């Protein structure tokens, strides 16, 4: 079972909820896919035992074989290759913009002259460890890198299907989030009852419906803001799994790196109930298929 935790809006409490859910269940593997700022380790405090560098393959052109035909540039979805034909002013040239390359390999595969080889470029690292019975994996994108999906995909290769896998997704609704939640059996959307929270929740719901991933909502700081989020969920028939009140104790514990489930143990029971609902929904979906 893979449960991802996403949000749309940033700062709604994804990591807070994901880490508390992880601590409430047994046999959990926690995967922090927010590789641009992985912070779940602050709350879960795993012992990191394994560090591996992560790379993507980028093209290198052998100029002695290249005929400047432009096929590589044509197939590059990300405009990472420029081909300048021969002219009075030069012999022509292929330019590779490594930081734009997603490492798909199409250019190397389709080069008619086999003039392109792929070379490794380091983009970040993956760390794995554990805390008691909880397994932990996260990715950390190198500073200055603009693209996180290639690293997120590599982090997700560590998924252990025999565990209850909890994926902490990055904020937003763009490629990194889609990459993180893809393949999940269920997605928890954490939101807050504010206009910004609702706006981004609606976007996230649109994304999940397109991906056909079952989802439910947890409303964090539920006693703030307005009732528009509740009304939206009711009108869209979205299950509100849990409401977490705005409490000073939770914020105070957070500031010290302590998840809410540890200072308010009664919440563990609530998270177990949430997980039960999730299991029921996923089972129901599986029966339908």
């Amino acid at each position: 079972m893979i449960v991802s935790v996403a949000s749309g809006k940033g700062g709604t409490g994804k990591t807070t909820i994901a880490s508390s859910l992880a601590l409430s269940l047994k046999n959990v593997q926690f995967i922090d896919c927010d590789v641009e700022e992985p912070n779940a380790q602050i709350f879960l405090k795993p012992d990191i035992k394994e560090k591996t560098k992560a790379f993507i393959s980028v093209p290198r052109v052998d100029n002695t074989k290249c005929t400047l035909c432009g096929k590589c540039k044509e197939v590059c979805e990300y405009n990472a290759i420029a081909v300048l034909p021969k002219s009075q002013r030069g012999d022509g040239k292929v330019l590779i913009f490594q930081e734009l390359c997603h490492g798909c390999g199409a250019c190397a595969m389709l080069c008619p002259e086999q003039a392109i080889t792929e070379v490794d470029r380091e983009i970040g690292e993956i760390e794995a460890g554990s805390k008691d019975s909880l397994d932990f994996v996260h990715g950390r994108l190198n500073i200055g890198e603009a693209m996180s999906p290639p690293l997120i995909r590599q982090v997700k290769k560590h998924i252990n299907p025999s565990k209850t896998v909890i994926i902490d997704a990055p904020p937003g609704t763009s490629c990194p989030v889609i990459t993180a939640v893809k393949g999940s059996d269920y997605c928890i959307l954490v939101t807050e009852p504010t206009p910004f929270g609702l706006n981004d929740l609606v976007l996230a719901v649109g994304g999940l419906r397109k991906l056909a991933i079952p989802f439910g909502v947890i409303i964090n700081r539920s006693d703030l803001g307005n009732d528009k989020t509740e009304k939206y969920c009711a009108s869209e028939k979205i299950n509100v799994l849990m409401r977490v009140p705005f409490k000073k104790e939770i914020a105070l514990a957070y500031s010290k790196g302590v998840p809410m489930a540890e200072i308010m143990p009664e919440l563990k029971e609530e998270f177990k109930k949430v997980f039960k609902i999730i299991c029921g929904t996923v089972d129901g979906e599986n029966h339908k298929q």
Partner: protein
Amino acid sequence: MIICVTSQGNSVESRVDPRFGRCAYFIFADTSTGKFEAIKNPNIEATGGAGPQSAQLVASKGAKKILTGNVGPNAMSTLAAAGIEVVTNVWGSVKEAVDNNK
């Protein structure tokens, strides 16, 4: 000589577009014939790499000089590889820009 100007519109009276890769139009001026040609920039909505794409377009038209506001690093290296002279901080109308940089 063909000079290219990044432009906010499709006429010589239009203002110079300060962006290179995602400018609205490229206007190519042939200084030997006095003719102008405007091309709508197809790279405005590129998810990335608009600079190098635009630079290749400018090169394919045989321009020797580009007049614009500013050029990003990827576009700059593509223009340099194509042997195109880059003039930045250009403003005013396209016509004035060409007249001042012949």
